């Protein structure tokens, strides 16, 4: 996305270049985020998709400077509105510039503090309003996130609200100081489908209204589809594929994206359709495999994949890190070779696909 500099005069809202986050452990450095680059423009949404342990949460929390660990090692560059923030204190960005919604609305609110106090605190700190004005603003915010009887709610405690309500309060708090960049870390994973739809619609509306940039972290490709402009698929701390949302679903190139898609039960499948799980386990991030991180679980894997690690391609806005991309001649040939041999270069058994 750095090559789309032709019509943007101002620096992009967020420019991440070769960003690395590691944690010192007894066994060595756990490379949770291993050289990630992306750009996020004002008003856009980036979906970040991957399994647990892919580094998607660490990436976002580290960008925000929320990982308070002396064992953390941060390298590379993250520019927020052109200003370098890596290894700088990011606390003065919180609230007004960047804000975050967490996964679990049950535990991210303070259970012994009234809703009103929790919303007015950032308002008073960041916008400098007095108590009365802050309460008025809090009521406005609660109205904007669709909470009925907001004037009554501000005197209630979190336990008096349902999960969906609490997540709306979280959104209200996150948006209270009008941030330009919002991180939504699995905002609906703990919620029912109906509430999930409401919250995602609400985030979309508020984002459009405020022209805010957002990263939507999710393990659910269905959630990311239709709610994002671009999607970044992460695995083992690296980007496997990066594409405009529509392109990703119509011409996915990375075997991992394909594997992730085919492991999900889809509504169009008839009942008792056999799912295709991803074999094996996620990589060890302390001593990852030398080649492609996904090679041990990949049905396309060739000797090349074990020896060297593919770079993320850079010739278009659809990028992938794979020697044998899905749907290309190389990819098809690789899969055919593996199917004929019954095993991949790594030794993973491959069964021949049945004709659909």
């Amino acid at each position: 996305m750095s090559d789309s500099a032709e019509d943007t005069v101002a620096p992009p809202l967020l420019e991440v270049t070769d960003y690395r986050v590691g944690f010192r452990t007894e066994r060595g450095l756990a490379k949770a985020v291993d050289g990630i680059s992306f750009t996020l423009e004002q008003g856009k949404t980036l979906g970040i998709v991957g399994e647990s342990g892919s580094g998607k949460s660490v990436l976002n929390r580290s960008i925000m400077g929320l990982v308070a660990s002396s064992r953390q090692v941060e390298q590379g560059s993250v520019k927020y509105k052109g200003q370098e923030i890596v290894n700088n204190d990011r606390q003065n960005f919180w609230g007004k510039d960047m804000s975050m919604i967490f996964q679990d609305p049950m535990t991210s609110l303070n259970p012994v503090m009234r809703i009103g106090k929790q919303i007015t605190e950032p308002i008073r700190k960041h916008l400098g309003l007095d108590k009365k004005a802050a309460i008025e603003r809090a009521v406005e915010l609660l109205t904007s996130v669709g909470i009925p009887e907001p004037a009554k709610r501000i005197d209630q405690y979190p336990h008096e609200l349902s999960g969906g309500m609490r997540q709306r309060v979280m959104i209200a708090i996150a948006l209270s100081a009008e941030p330009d960049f919002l991180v939504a870390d699995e905002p609906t994973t703990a919620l029912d489908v109906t509430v999930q739809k409401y919250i995602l619609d609400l985030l979309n509306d508020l984002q459009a209204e405020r022209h805010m940039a957002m990263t939507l972290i999710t393990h659910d490709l269905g959630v990311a589809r239709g709610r994002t402009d671009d999607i970044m698929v992460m695995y083992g701390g690296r980007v496997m594929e990066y594409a405009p949302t529509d392109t990703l679903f119509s011409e996915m190139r990375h075997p991992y994206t394909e594997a992730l898609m085919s492991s999900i039960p889809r509504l169009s499948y008839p009942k008792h359709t056999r799912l295709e799980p991803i074999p094996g386990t996620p990589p060890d991030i302390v001593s990852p495999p030398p080649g492609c991180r996904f090679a041990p679980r990949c049905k396309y894997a060739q000797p090349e994949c074990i020896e060297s690690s593919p770079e993320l391609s850079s010739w278009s806005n659809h990028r992938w890190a794979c020697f044998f991309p899905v749907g290309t001649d190389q990819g098809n040939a690789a899969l055919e070779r593996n199917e004929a041999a019954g095993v991949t270069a790594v030794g993973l058994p491959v069964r021949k696909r049945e004709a659909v």
Partner: protein
Amino acid sequence: MAGSGKAHLRAEGEALLRVDNLVVEFPVGKGRVVHAVTDVSFDIIEGETLGLVGESGCGKSTTAKAVIQLPRPTGGSVVFEGKDLAQLKGEELRRMRPEIQMIFQDPISSLNPRRRVFDIVSEGVSVWSGKGDAGFATDRVARIIEEVGLDVETAREKRAHEYSGGQCQRISVARALVLDPKIIVCDEPVSALDVSVQAQVLNLLEDMKDRYGLTLLFISHDLSVVKNVSDRIAVMYLGKLCEVGDSDEIFADPAHPYTRLLLSAIPDADNELNMEAQTLEGELPSPITPPPGCRFHTRCPKVQDVCRSEEPQMASTGGADHFVACHFPDLVESAVTVS
């Protein structure tokens, strides 16, 4: 929603498990009562998977627990192999326990982290087989641990906390299978798992179902998962059933307004209903004072006066195996003209 009625039940004797007029209530003091499950009836034929879906708080887990008599329902009967479990007491009920097993939502907290996995799985066998045929029991445990995809030797050595979430759910499956049950109640078995692991566990459940001729009561809030594993689906709302039927049929032509709203909320690329700009308005009413008439009337887009006073009864939609409890169901056109 809806309602009561038993039009959706199959002939007596045909079903392996038949639940009639199940009521579960919890007193909450001052004479108030939570009506968790009210007058719910359903049945499961041998070898069938019944999916129970609904939002949190609709009573689906309570229903499942009432089936295995933990705790006992307030009213109604749960007939399994001709015996009403709700009436059985003490030793008689205990004798039935191996026949109906359960798999819980959180695989990690449902296993004792400090016990060896082999011991966890063999606990049921050692309780039931006495001391006589210990050798047979050990063989069986070993075979089942292997069948769920775990290594037996490792299972003898390692303790539950050394296993990942997906592996723990495999252990739970093994623990449920080891007593050769007829029915397994699965309460959100894959909700806590990652998508790729979820697929593994779902496939495992299907394999085990085929191999052991199991009958499953499968509870989940994830509609795509339920659709995939179930033969028949029952949709619950606030302690009542609103729609029951063949899973493909319900997903193709949802007849109840609540089912429609529920399905339209699924974030799935193939979801045609997702295009509908409907959203479920308002909050779930309190189960302490459920709305009269159809319980869904407070949030229903099609509500009429009759819905506020009269409870709809389960009736056929005209589809082959599709029943709905609604005064104004969305019926497929062909079905309407036929009737």
